[in-house]
């Protein structure tokens, strides 16, 4: 056992910012790891990758990837990414953000980018809570869960993000937990190579806050919850792709072909210039 060799993914990280700020056992680190592995296995030109993130713990990810990156205002990474992708379609534009950022304040931008079939990849770290600000409830917080703003148990129904993404027209929709590292990496690879709007929900552990508030105080306990509750059910009906404390249906749910906004825009421009 030696310590001289550097980690094989050093080149994907900003060395002067490692170790990252995320807590011990936080799912965000695993998501970053799987993302780096996907970039590595695809041998993608790092000069052509732009990582955009919003506000939240996962939002800090753009500060750790050794790529062009931008940390936007809360809820707006997808709108920002729209501008980036349309201005320079050669870039691989990846949005990595959280459940609150993408689906509460950012919900409108998500549904429209999916509807337009913008050629970007969106990875959502769904940890069921607003961790960065101390543990408030969000749109994916399960019914009855304890958070600082649901101290009597959450009475709001949670989004089924897979169902939402599918309904909005995303061409690739998958859900994995941070335990499914290999599946997750393969999904990220697929999304990066697929034309159109791809969405990957990563059920991720926030042991320090969500776990502690809801009887899973250690990161291992949360991972064991994922292990017991998750069930791989590829291509099951998105509206039936349950996500409850007892059953987390994971897999790839949507994988269709549809011309992206960029493709239609290019075709339109060709037609317009031919008319003149």
């Amino acid at each position: 056992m030696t310590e001289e060799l550097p980690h094989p993914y050093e080149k994907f990280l900003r060395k002067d910012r490692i170790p990252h700020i995320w807590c011990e056992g936080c799912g965000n680190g695993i998501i970053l790891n799987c993302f780096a592995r996907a970039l590595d296995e695809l041998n993608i030109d790092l000069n052509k990758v732009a990582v955009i993130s919003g506000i939240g713990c996962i939002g800090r990810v753009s500060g750790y990837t050794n790529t062009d990156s931008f940390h936007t205002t809360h809820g707006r990474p997808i709108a920002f990414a729209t501008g980036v992708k349309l201005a320079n379609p050669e870039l691989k534009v990846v949005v990595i953000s959280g459940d609150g950022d993408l689906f509460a304040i950012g919900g409108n931008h998500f549904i429209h980018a999916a509807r337009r079939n913008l050629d970007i990849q969106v990875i959502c770290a769904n940890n069921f809570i607003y961790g960065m600000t101390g543990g408030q409830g969000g749109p994916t917080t399960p019914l009855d869960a304890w958070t600082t703003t649901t101290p009597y148990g959450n009475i709001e129904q949670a989004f089924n993000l897979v169902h939402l993404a599918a309904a909005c027209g995303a061409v690739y929709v998958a859900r994995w937990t941070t335990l499914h590292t290999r599946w997750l990496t393969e999904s990220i690879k697929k999304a990066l190579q697929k034309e159109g709007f791809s969405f990957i929900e990563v059920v991720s552990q926030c042991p320090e806050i969500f776990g502690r508030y809801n009887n899973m105080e250690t990161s291992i306990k949360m991972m064991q919850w994922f292990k017991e509750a998750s069930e791989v059910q590829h291509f099951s009906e998105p509206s039936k792709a349950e996500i409850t404390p007892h059953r987390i249906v994971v897999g790839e749910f949507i994988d269709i072909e549809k011309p992206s906004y960029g493709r239609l825009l290019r075709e339109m421009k060709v037609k317009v210039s031919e008319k003149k």
Partner: protein
Amino acid sequence: MTTASTSVEKPRVVRSGRRFTSGDIACAEGALAAGCRFFAGYPITPATEIAEHMARRLPEIGGVYIQMEDEIASMAAVIGASYAGVKAMTATSGPGFSLMMENIGLALMTETPCVIVNVMRGGPSTGQPTMPGQQDVMQARWGSHGDYEIIALAPSSVQEMFDLTVEAFNLAETYRVPVFVLADEIVGHMWERITILEAESIKIVNRKKPTVPPSNEFAPFKPDEDLVPPMAVFGEGYHFHATGLTHDERGYPRTESAEAQTRLVQRLCNKIRENKGRIIRVENAMLEDAEVAVVAYGIAARAALSAVRKARAKGIKAGLLRPVTLWPFSEEQVAQMARRVKAIVVPEMNCGQIVREVERAAKETPVIFLPKLGEEPHKPDEILDAIKEVQK
């Protein structure tokens, strides 16, 4: 140039020549002439025509037009496009302007060159969509949270809608700052004859680019002598990070450091303050020997000029100081002028915004405020009456 059906011209970028057109369309054409190739916006009276014209023109010349789902998204997309290396703009009016404020702050913090046109209408809230107003002037300066400086230009003719939009892009690229074009519903919707120069004669400024090659030590927010950092954009290999959090010269968040906050925020303000001499433009008419001055901008300046001429015809030594640049405010010019005149008349289509700046700069010199709200701009005679009152 007409707004009806398809144009019979080939898609030139700059439609040089003498044209009869509207303010909104002239603004859009000015943007294209300045190099704008990305527009993200949302329909809103009275700025919709800018979006519609851009929707038609941008695909012809290889640019991108997108109607976003709201103004918040529009502003975010503009910043994204600018960071991907394309000159970008949006156009809106009061309600949309309010929605954009948070992301305007992001543009300021990340030093994003971009242009935001606000064709002002009656407010507050939904107000009077089809009527003019000058009620968003202070909002342009102070609308986003935190401390910062912006540049705002106030066109008062269709020609200026073209020219000042070009200037707005040049200023944005020079200072890496959002620049506002504060028009109003009358200037936006009126039709006048303008001259568009040949493309070669139109001065264009592009953002400074880094002179060093990519490296692990590259500092995307390290300023030059003029306090403006050269701008790397996505896809050039610099692998830089930008954030709305307080950051250091490497772009990394420094949320714990008072020193970082002081350095960054002071520089963002000084970037404009120390370059005021190069930024501020004022146009004067008959001001040198004036005994009564009128300070007016935008549509009010049209009536003010007429009033000043009428006053002169009656033997009253009146003069006009017209700030073309509303922000930074031309304090020195107003202060100097104030020492020479008996009083200053300020007509504005609001309840008192720029007049406060005038009062501050004018110190002891009396300032007479002429508010006007609603569909009618000031009549020259209303301003003339105020001038006459001063002379009594």
